[in-house]
């Protein structure tokens, strides 16, 4: 009997980290399940103002795009082929765009992050830019 109780307690103790991990995974899956998904986008980082109002993009516009991003104009990701625009967001609140992202403006990049959709608008948080 004592062996049985010892076995049950040991099993419960061993399972607890597993359950915590599983819970975490579940939350992650749950969050993604709520319309958030990981996404990889190939395209170009553009500054929203100049692209939307003037269709300005590309290497010829790079410096202006960098200046716009530093001035606070939102960065967007223009997807190759589809022409879809995703507003790029930092991963955390109270942070700006990293310099490594700003310096890649106007260049073809691959952006990985989390996709959010809200009221027909698309947003992607930056996980990595290559």
């Amino acid at each position, binding site marked *: 009997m004592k062996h049985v109780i010892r076995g049950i307690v040991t099993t419960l103790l061993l399972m607890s980290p597993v359950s915590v991990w599983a819970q975490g995974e579940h939350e992650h899956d749950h969050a993604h399940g709520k319309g958030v998904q990981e996404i990889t986008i190939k395209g170009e980082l553009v500054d929203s*103002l*100049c692209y939307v109002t003037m269709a300005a993009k590309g290497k010829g516009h790079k410096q*202006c795009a960098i*200046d*716009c991003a530093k*001035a606070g104009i939102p960065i967007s990701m223009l997807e190759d082929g589809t022409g879809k625009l995703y507003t790029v967001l930092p991963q955390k609140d109270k942070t700006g765009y990293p310099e490594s992202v700003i310096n890649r403006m106007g260049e073809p990049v691959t952006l990985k992050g989390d996709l959010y959709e809200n009221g027909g608008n698309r947003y992607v948080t930056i996980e990595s830019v290559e």
Partner: protein
Amino acid sequence: MTTTPVALRAANRSSLRNKMDFSLLGFQGLHQVFNVHPVFVHFPIALFPSALLLYGLGIILNWRAACVAGRACLYLAMAGTVAAVVTGLMAQDTFPHNERIHHMMQTHKTIGIALFLMSTLLVIWSILQKAQRPKAAYPFLIVLAATTYLVLQNADLGGRMVFIEGAAVKPAVSVITGEHGGHEETHTHHHETEEEPPDHQMH
């Protein structure tokens, strides 16, 4: 989608109308520019470097045909310089400008007049030639090179006046004059602009 000949012709006409707005043709740009000086500046800017290149090849490589072409470019450059200087003098009072533009314009004008004198000298010098090669060929090349440098320097100054300061650029008038109105040709008083041209930081 219908494919009868009549429908296709109608579709093609409609497609052409969509691609071409014929009402935009005509030289409206010329009429709307404050002055015609920008039309003539192309000639000295392009033809002096071309003359330098051709004379350089002709003199260094003893290539007569290049000297002939260089001479043609030099004469065309001189004619272009005359036209540019004359139209520039006519234009200086025709567009709203502030103290900064005026200051740049004075330097631009001085160099322009110097270029006219130098090009006159070069044209006369080129007439004194033997087998299309100017007498004292290498000093000639040096003077031509100096003239070309001044042309390009003056062009840079003119470009700054237009692209950065907005001289003769219609939408920049309010920026230049500070939206006060009635402040054309502010030669002497200091002009406070409400909205300073933010140089190359703005979009």
